[in-house]
C-alpha cells in the first residue's frame, strides 16, 4: 500500500523535515505516526498525498510512484485518498449535507448518487439528523465527524488524518478514534498522525515515532 525508501524532504532553508525514512504500510493496516511538534509527521502526510515532492528517496502509494505522477494523474490518485484535518476545514457557507456531497459534486458524480452516498455516510457517523445544520452550529466532535464523513464519501482506499483529535477532549478523541477503527475494519488503510501517546496506547495499534525527521521507534 505504502512503500518509502530513504525518503527525505529538505526545505530551502537547508532544514530536513524528513530524513532517510524507510517503511512499509500494508493494505488494510491501521498505523499511528507520532512524535513531537516539528518531527515531520505532517510533512510525511503531505508527501503521501502528493502535496509535496520528496527531495530524496522513493515513495510508492497505492502502487504509484508519486515522484513521476503528472498533474492529471495526481488528481486521479487523490480520489483514492481521504484526508482529515485537525481544524476540520469545513466550508462555513455550506450545510452539513453540502460539505459532504461537495466532494462528489466536483468529481462530477450524478446528483442521485451524491444524495444517496452522502446520506449513507452521514448516517454512519451518526449525524444524519443534522444535514441542514451549518458547521458553526455543530460541536467540535460533530464537526470532526462531518470531516471524516467527507473523507469517506468517495470510498477511498487510504485515509490520512493529521492530528484529528487535536482540538477535542479525551472522550471525544476516543469516539473519533473508534470511527477510524471502524473505517479500518471495513478494509481501508488508515494512517493517523497524533502526538497523543495515551490515545495510541488506548487504541493499541502499530505506531512509528519520528523525531527531527528521523524514524526513532516502531512499536
Amino acid at each position: 500500500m505504502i512503500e518509502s525508501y530513504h525518503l527525505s524532504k529538505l526545505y530551502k532553508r537547508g532544514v530536513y523535515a524528513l530524513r532517510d525514512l524507510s517503511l512499509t504500510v500494508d493494505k488494510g493496516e491501521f498505523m499511528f505516526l507520532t512524535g513531537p511538534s516539528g518531527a515531520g509527521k505532517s510533512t510525511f502526510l503531505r508527501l503521501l498525498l502528493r502535496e509535496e515532492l520528496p527531495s530524496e528517496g522513493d515513495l510508492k502509494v497505492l502502487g504509484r510512484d508519486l515522484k513521476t505522477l503528472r498533474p492529471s494523474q495526481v488528481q486521479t490518485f487523490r480520489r483514492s485518498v481521504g484526508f482529515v484535518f485537525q481544524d476540520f476545514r469545513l466550508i462555513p457557507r455550506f450545510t452539513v449535507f453540502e460539505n459532504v456531497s461537495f466532494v462528489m459534486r466536483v468529481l462530477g458524480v450524478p446528483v442521485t448518487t451524491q444524495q444517496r452516498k452522502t446520506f449513507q455516510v452521514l448516517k454512519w457517523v451518526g449525524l444524519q439528523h443534522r444535514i441542514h445544520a451549518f458547521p458553526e452550529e455543530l460541536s467540535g466532535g460533530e464537526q470532526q465527524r462531518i470531516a471524516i464523513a467527507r473523507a469517506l464519501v468517495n470510498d477511498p482506499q487510504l485515509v490520512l488524518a493529521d492530528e484529528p483529535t487535536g482540538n477535542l477532549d479525551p472522550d471525544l478523541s476516543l469516539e473519533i478514534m473508534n470511527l477510524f477503527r471502524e473505517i479500518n475494519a471495513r478494509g481501508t488503510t488508515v494512517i493517523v498522525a497524533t502526538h497523543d501517546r495515551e490515545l495510541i496506547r488506548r487504541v493499541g495499534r502499530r505506531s512509528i515515532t519520528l523525531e527531527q525527521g528521523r524514524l526513532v521507534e516502531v512499536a
Partner: protein
Amino acid sequence: MLRYAFDEALASLWRRRQSGLLATGTIAIALFVLGAFLIVTANLERLGDEWGRAAELSVYLSDDVTPDQRHAVEVALDQDGSVAGREFLSKADALRRFKQTFADLAAAVDTVGGNPLPASLEVRLRPRAAAGPGIEGLSARLRQMGGVADVRYDRQWLARMLSGIRLIRGAGLALGAMLTIAAALTIANVVRLALVARRDELEIMQLVGAPSAYIRGPFVMEGVIQGGMGAALAILALGAAFATLQARYLGALADAVNVSTVQFLSVEVCVGLVVGGMAVGCLGGLAAGSRS
C-alpha cells in the same frame, strides 16, 4: 461542468457584488468609450462615402472648343475607371443654373453682356476613386487636352477628412485598448479576491482530486459573466446616449452635413463588443485562476 461553473460564478458574484460591480463598471466604461469612437468613426466614414459619391470633377471647356476636341475629352472620361458618369452642361445651361442658384446676382450677370460662363462636363466619380490618387492623374491629362480651359476637383479637403477619420479611429482604438487592458486587470484582481476568499474550498477541491476545470472553471466563468455584463451595460448606455442626442441634435446635424442619417452601431458590432467583453473577462479569469 459548465452548469457547475455557472452556478458557482453567479453565487460568487452575488456574495461579492460590490467588487463585482467595480469590475463590470470598469469594462462597461472601456467598451462605452470604444463603442462611442466606433459610432463616430463609422458615421464619419459613411459621411466621407456619401460626400465622395457626390464629389464631381468639373471639366470647363473653352468657348472655341471643337466637336472633335469635346468628343476626345468625353472618350478620355469614359475610358477612365474612376468615372461613374458624365453630363454635358452647355453655356446656356450653366447661365440658367447660375441664375437659379444665385438669383440676387442674376442682374449683375446681365450687365456683363453676353454669357461669361463656360460650357462644362460635370463628371460623377466612383465612391472609392473620389479620394484616390488616380483622379490627380486624370485631371492632369485632361488639362493637357485641346479645348479644355480648366479642371476643378476638390480632392484635397476630402483626403484631409479621410485622414482625420483615420486619426480619430486610431485614437479611439488606442484609448479603447488601454481601457480594455485596465478592465481585464480589474477583472483579474476581482476574481483573484474571490479566489482568496474561497481558498479553503479550493484546497479541499485540490486534495480530493477535483479536475482543474472544476477548480478554475468558476473563476473563468465569473470573468466571462462580468465581461459580458459590462459590454451589455456599455451598449445600453451607448444606446441611451445616442437616442438622447439623436432626439436633440443628431437629426439636425445629419441635415446640416448632408448625410442621410446618423446611425447607431450595427448588430454585428454590438455582438462583437459583447463577445469581446466576454473574451476580456475570460482572460482576466484565466489570469487569476492560473495561480490557484
